[in-house]
């Protein structure tokens, strides 16, 4: 019996090559997209899951009952204290993240992008398996460092060579490699290329620059532990505030919470953290939705074409019925056919996935692998999914086909042809709703991204060279040469600062005079005079930090408009006084700058103070004239060698550096663009199939109309009309859905473009255009047919 089914399935498919290939290629594209997205989702959901005992490992965060959000910023003594005092805490350790640190091994230099400072117990908490070295002792010595395989290969050729080798750390100290671990990047929310013992004294309770991870004993309740931490830590904090001359009441002290380690990567949206997680549960949902949508559209193609072409199989069904076939036999037969087609589609989809995987990896910014090694569970689930797709797509056609009345069939009654006619319209409309919604989202994302990239940021990012500094005192040396450098042709201005636009900006506690001891925590940037010139900031009131006023580089401050607004300073703002709570002297606000987007348009502009104090500044920026760039480059290279002899010279262009923060959105936008394109292709395959079918079905009508004098154009329009109406109906449904989704998505951005009608109109026009092109070609062919031929068989 199965032989018989198989024979007829293959022969029918072959006879209707066009429709079969539309069905199969649509399913193949749908499956390929779905597999790719499955790989992406699998990647995202396996990040960090490999960590041994990760289920009882947590990251500690702080929160305030009256404020939204939480901060995974903790002080260093926290870990030591909770291990010592709480029996539920099996181990705890801190992590301090640094970046851009020079490692030198022999003649090989490498700037380590992400470096972690930890204590000796770190691997007890986060048991990152070592490829080489002993987890127990790897971090025992203060001179020890464990490095990623990647760094090991860069510095020593192979990972095995690295063990025991020595590394010069930032021209400051010698380290000995005691362990090598598999690269964390992409496998964990942690992306550190090297982990070493903290080389600095940073022991204060008020220095919230550390992440703290903890492993609890089995069966202890994290919520209870968090409460205990609250109680335990409060006295320490109060004392520390007190010593620092802060007047903080007990109620103002933050609470503590434990975030499960395995949830950090995908579910950290509400938690501000030092190590920013690239993952987002929301994107996993978006991508999952797109995968389902493409599969749905491919499935709909199958349903539409199968039911539309049902009349071609009516006779066979009749015969089988009078030959004794029960309905279930026929249902099984047609389901087997659809499963067969989806399996064929899978055979096309698999190589397609292999081919497009590198591109997809690049678009998503994830390193995805498919069948690099045999992966049976994945293979089976793909196979199972494919069979399910076949069954789902085949069910409705099978029910329709098997339900025909025998007596009508054998008489060749035409009524059977109308079956599924309305449903087909509903399904095609559904497809177009999906297409139009995706197209709207694509347009909105594209425009929001452009809006961000083209927005007046309030500062000038062009022709600015950014130089990362590596030593705490480099900026002083650089400032000392400033006047020499400024003499060169093409160098307009120079500054050193703790942060340039796009860099992370720390916040600081500030006391405003006459505010009843209220503390505020604005962002703070340490700058040298000239910062405003380099970035082209507008000073609205007073002046910027200036060399000419000695107080400016010690006590005084400059604030932005948001500062004045948020803390309700009365005008004139210049002349009012603020200070750090742990200092006696008040500093004057000497200037107000116009708001500018120093951390990108996805963040609100926060209150900001500039200080000219001699605090650490790890960035230099130079405004140059592009025409002279090559001479300036060699000059700076030479000069920097004198300032930082051990460090190869590096620089970025500020505009490129700043655009980096939009990478996430660009990836999403690109992914969406490609998905939309593919979805449209799959949908159009179906539309094309229906157009072919319709023109075959209407060939007699076309013939008659032609004889009666209809022009080709009128006939094309006759066939096109129905599709245009469907697109219009779908658009009416899609517009509010798209509007709602677009609004939702835009909420992520502090600065949103005005949501106007353009993406919506364009999406509808796009759908109309591709539909017309798809249908017209076929309609034109049908309209040109010789009426004699069309009518001959009647």
């Amino acid at each position, binding site marked *: 019996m199965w032989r018989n089914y198989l*024979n*007829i399935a293959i022969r029918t498919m072959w006879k209707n090559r066009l429709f079969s290939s539309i069905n199969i290629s649509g399913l193949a594209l749908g499956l390929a997209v779905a597999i790719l997205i499955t790989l992406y989702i699998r990647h995202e959901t396996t990040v960090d899951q490999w960590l041994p005992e990760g289920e009882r490992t947590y990251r500690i965060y702080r929160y305030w009952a009256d404020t939204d959000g939480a901060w995974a910023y903790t002080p260093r003594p926290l870990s030591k204290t909770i291990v010592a005092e709480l029996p539920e805490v099996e181990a705890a350790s801190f992590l301090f993240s640094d970046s851009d640190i020079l490692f030198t091994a022999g003649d090989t230099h490498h700037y380590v992008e992400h470096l972690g400072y930890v204590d000796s117990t770190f691997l007890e908490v986060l048991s990152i398996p070592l490829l080489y070295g002993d987890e127990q002792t790897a971090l025992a010595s203060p001179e020890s460092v464990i490095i990623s395989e990647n760094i090991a290969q860069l510095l020593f050729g192979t990972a095995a060579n690295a063990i025991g080798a020595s590394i010069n750390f930032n021209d400051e100290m010698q380290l000995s490699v005691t362990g090598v671990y598999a690269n964390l990047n992409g496998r964990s929310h942690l992306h550190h290329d090297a982990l070493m013992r903290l080389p600095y004294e940073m022991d204060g309770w008020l220095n919230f620059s550390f992440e703290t991870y903890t492993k609890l004993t089995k069966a202890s309740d994290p919520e209870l532990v968090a409460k205990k931490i609250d109680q335990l830590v409060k006295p320490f904090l109060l004392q520390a505030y007190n010593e620092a001359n802060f007047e903080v009441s007990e109620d103002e002290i933050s609470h503590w919470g434990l975030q499960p380690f395995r949830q950090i990567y995908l579910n950290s949206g509400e938690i501000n953290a030092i190590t920013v997680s690239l993952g987002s549960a929301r994107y996993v949902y978006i991508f999952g939705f797109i995968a389902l949508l493409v599969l749905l559209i491919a499935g709909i193609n199958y349903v539409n074409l199968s039911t539309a072409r049902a009349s071609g199989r009516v006779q066979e069904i*009749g*015969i*089988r019925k*009078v*030959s004794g076939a029960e309905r279930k*036999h026929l249902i099984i037969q047609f389901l087997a056919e659809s499963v067969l087609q989806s399996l064929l589609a899978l055979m096309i989809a698999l190589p397609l996935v292999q081919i497009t995987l590198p591109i997809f990896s690049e678009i998503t910014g994830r390193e995805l692998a498919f069948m690099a090694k045999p992966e049976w569970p994945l293979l089976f689930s793909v196979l199972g999914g494919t069979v399910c797709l076949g069954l789902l797509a085949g069910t409705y056609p099978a029910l329709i086909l098997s339900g025909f009345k025998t007596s009508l069939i054998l008489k060749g009654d035409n009524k059977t042809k109308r079956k599924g006619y309305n449903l087909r319209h509903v399904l095609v409309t559904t497809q177009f709703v999906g297409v139009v919604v995706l197209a709207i989202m694509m347009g909105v994302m594209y425009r929001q991204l452009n809006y961000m990239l083209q927005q007046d940021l309030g500062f000038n990012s062009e022709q600015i060279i950014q130089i990362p500094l590596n030593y705490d005192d480099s900026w002083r040396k650089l400032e000392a040469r400033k006047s020499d450098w400024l003499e060169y042709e093409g160098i307009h201005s120079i500054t050193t600062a703790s942060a340039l636009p796009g860099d992370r900006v720390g916040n600081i506690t500030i006391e405003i005079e006459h505010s009843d001891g209220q503390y505020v925590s604005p962002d703070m940037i340490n700058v040298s005079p000239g910062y405003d010139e380099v970035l082209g900031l507008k000073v609205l009131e007073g002046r910027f930090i200036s060399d000419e006023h000695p107080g400016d580089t010690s006590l005084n401050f400059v604030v932005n408009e948001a500062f004045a607004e948020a803390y309700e300073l009365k005008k004139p703002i210049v002349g009012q006084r603020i200070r750090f709570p742990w200092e006696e002297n008040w500093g004057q606000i000497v200037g107000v700058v116009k708001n500018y987007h120093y951390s990108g348009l996805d963040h609100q502009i926060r209150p900001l103070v500039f200080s000219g104090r001699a605090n650490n500044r790890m960035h230099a920026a130079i405004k140059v004239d592009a025409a002279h760039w090559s001479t300036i480059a060699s000059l700076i290279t030479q000069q920097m060698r004198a300032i930082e002899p051990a460090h190869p010279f590096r620089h970025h262009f500020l505009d490129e550096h700043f655009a980096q923060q939009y990478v996430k959105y660009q990836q999403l936008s690109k992914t969406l663009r490609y998905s939309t394109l593919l979805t449209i292709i799959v949908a159009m395959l179906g539309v094309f199939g229906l157009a072919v079918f319709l023109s075959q079905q209407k060939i007699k009508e076309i013939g008659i109309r032609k004889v009666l004098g209809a022009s080709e154009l009128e006939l094309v329009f006759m066939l096109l009309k129905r599709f245009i109406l469907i697109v219009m109906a779908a658009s009416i449904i899609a517009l509010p859905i798209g509007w709602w989704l677009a609004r939702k998505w835009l909420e992520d951005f502090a600065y949103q473009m005005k949501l106007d009608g353009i993406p919506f109109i364009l999406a509808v026009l796009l759908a109309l255009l591709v539909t017309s092109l798809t249908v017209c070609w076929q309609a034109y062919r049908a309209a040109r047919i010789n009426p004699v031929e069309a009518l001959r068989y009647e």
Partner: protein
Amino acid sequence: MLQLTDIERYYRNGLRKTWVLNRVNLNIKEGEFVTIMGPSGAGKSTLLNILGLLEAPSGGNYEFLGERVDKLSEKKRSELHKAYMGFVFQAYHLIDDLTVYENIETPLLYRGIGKKERKSMVAEILDRFNIVAKQDLFPDQLSGGQQQLVGVARAVISKPRLLLADEPTGNLHTKQGDQIMELFRELNKDGVTIIQVTHSERNAAYGTRKIELLDGNIQEDQYLESASAL
């Protein structure tokens, strides 16, 4: 074998009912070879469809082998088809995408007959109908007469007790038609009850009983003594 009592079939057309069959009473015994005749629109095909359980009557009683069958579920009907009936159509209705062999084999598949037995049954009937050489051809590679031969072979492969034929020779030349009719007579001699619809007196002469239908009523019902003499 079967008994029709007051069988009615009408179509509703708005408020009007159009009768195709009007209070038909008919009793057919096992072993008969019945020909239903009549002008177009007399209700011949409808009657045949009702007899073959392809269409339900609008009213009346239909007893088949002593059981009422006018209101059966699809599954029950399918069981009766499998157990007792074979069909032959004017347009042959072979499955285009199956070979001659596969077409003939199809009814056996639905009766759950094993592969070996199927093979020997199909081989036997191919041999009997003299179409062994054609077994791997597709329907469109055969002449009309050959196609109908396959159609009959398919109808009788499962040894039905009742063979229903709707204009079996309507698309055939006289000579091809005679061949089919000879076959029918042989089958009838072997004990198969046959009911055929036809326009042709020549075909009717092969049967044992002739029923004339006019406007949904039985006009004439006549037993043909001379049938075997032809």
